[in-house]
């Protein structure tokens, strides 16, 4: 590989990372009606694209509430099935917005060595965590706290969100330290004091792969913040006395969100793979340097993202 194309590849890697970071730097804003305090410092203005998507989301939102009523009034499975399908679509579209773990998952997969199936696992773990968390929070507020739901939900979300950002910052920090120290082999115990020469033997060895524990950690940190839309539909179903419809809706919304997250995660894995492949087929010194750049950048963004949002929540 010529020196010239290595430079070009590094530039490509840097551009890829930059695009990823800029694109997803956003977090769920607070509800302007029911929260207290001002708008989130991290929220961004909308693009023309979302304004086109807004009527679609609106139609889905209205339809969800209407279907919940129909489920109560009808004995046939029709409304429940439609509710499930619209919830799935709502989850897919809705998760395209900021929040919902996209920054987290894409930077995580840049920093990790992962196969495409890992992004699928991450997507579905996030869906599972989200459904359980949204149901637990809504049911607790509805049956145990019994206060004003919309206000209680905002406060609960804020606490969960703060904890989640803190967890993301910690995960990012741990990964960043690991990547900088060059810990590449999970099966190599006591390798904290890695020396450069010990790596010479590992050049062509299989790099470490992401573990289930790590995937679950990231899913827990990013999926635990309940989506206000999903929570509102559970609440509506609760007040209509059709809890089953609420559970179906939130599970389907979560699966839809998981699907979007899987696509984002897969794309991050493919981008990384493409960049590495492009730099001398993923082997040799050039590729190792590019791999390190991508991984350290991914972990840095994950850490910076978690930390800045954690701090923004506290002030």
């Amino acid at each position, binding site marked *: *590989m010529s020196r010239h*194309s290595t430079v*070009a*590849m590094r530039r*490509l890697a840097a551009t890829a990372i930059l*695009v*990823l970071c800029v*694109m997803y730097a*956003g977090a769920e*804003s607070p*509800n*302007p*009606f*029911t*929260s207290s*305090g*001002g*708008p989130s410092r991290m*929220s*961004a*203005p*909308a*693009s*023309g*694209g*979302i*304004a*086109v*998507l*807004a*009527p679609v*989301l*609106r139609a889905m*939102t*209205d339809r*969800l*509430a209407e279907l919940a009523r129909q489920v109560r009034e009808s004995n046939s499975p029709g409304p429940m099935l439609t509710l499930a399908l619209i919830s799935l679509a709502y989850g897919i579209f*809705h998760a395209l*917005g*900021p929040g919902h773990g*996209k920054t987290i998952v894409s930077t995580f997969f840049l920093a990790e060595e992962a196969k495409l199936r890992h992004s699928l696992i991450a997507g579905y773990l996030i869906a599972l965590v989200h459904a359980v968390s949204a149901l637990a929070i809504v049911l607790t507020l509805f049956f145990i706290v019994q206060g*004003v*739901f*919309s*206000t209680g939900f905002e406060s609960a979300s804020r606490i969960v969100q703060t904890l989640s950002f803190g967890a993301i910052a910690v995960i990012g920090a741990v990964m960043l330290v690991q990547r900088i120290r060059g810990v590449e082999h999970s099966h190599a115990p006591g390798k904290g004091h890695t020396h450069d020469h010990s790596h010479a033997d590992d050049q062509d060895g299989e790099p470490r792969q992401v573990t289930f524990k790590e995937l679950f950690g990231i899913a827990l940190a990013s999926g635990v913040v309940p989506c*206000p*839309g999903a929570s*509102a*539909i559970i*609440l*509506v179903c609760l*007040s209509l006395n059709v809890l089953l419809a609420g559970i179906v809706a939130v599970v389907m919304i979560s699966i839809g969100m998981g699907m979007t997250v899987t696509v984002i995660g897969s*794309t991050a894995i*493919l*981008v990384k793979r*493409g*960049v590495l*492949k*492009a730099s001398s*087929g993923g082997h040799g010194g050039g590729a190792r340097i590019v791999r390190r750049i991508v991984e350290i950048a991914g972990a840095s963004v994950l850490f910076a993202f978690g930390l800045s949002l954690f701090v923004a929540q506290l002030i």
Partner: protein
Amino acid sequence: MRCSSRIALAALFAFVPTLCAYAHPHVFISSHVAVDFEGTVLARVSVEWTFDELFSQMIIADYDKVSKGSFTEAEAMALKKGAFDNLKNYHYFLAFFIDGKKLTLPPIRDFRPTIMDGRLVYSFSLSLELPITAKLTELRITIYDDTYYVAFDKTNQNDIEIHSADAVAAEVSIEKTKVKPEWPGQFMPDQIVLRMKRK
């Protein structure tokens, strides 16, 4: 090698569609605006927001406890405190420009929540007390949440009403905003434009 860099680039472009979805709405509102004149003075602007089903039902379930279908005085007060007053941090999603100059938002008056066909409706007004002279005055109104938690339906000419404009010649239109976007591709909502002159 050439081929794989193309794959990498293609993968990058796969991200572009998500750029369009930078912020996403949870609450949807269709708004209605009425402009009231008293003689040659633009006295007040009254705003009416009709909410989407999901947000409506959540707020109704929270605050409409006594006589279902309408809010009592106490319920309306509680609702104002719990689901309206915080909008002061968002300038009530409103901005007024008179002849290109942004106006300090006048205080909000007469807030009243109602339920119409199962939908939550907020109405309130703002006293502008703007004297209209023989010189043409241009009032531009933006209704927009720049955090995009709330998406407002596109305003139509039919959503704007003018009351008691006997002494004033007023023309209404919906026009592109004159506010410059901060970044390319940013969504800029249309403005309601009133051009007024004393008759």
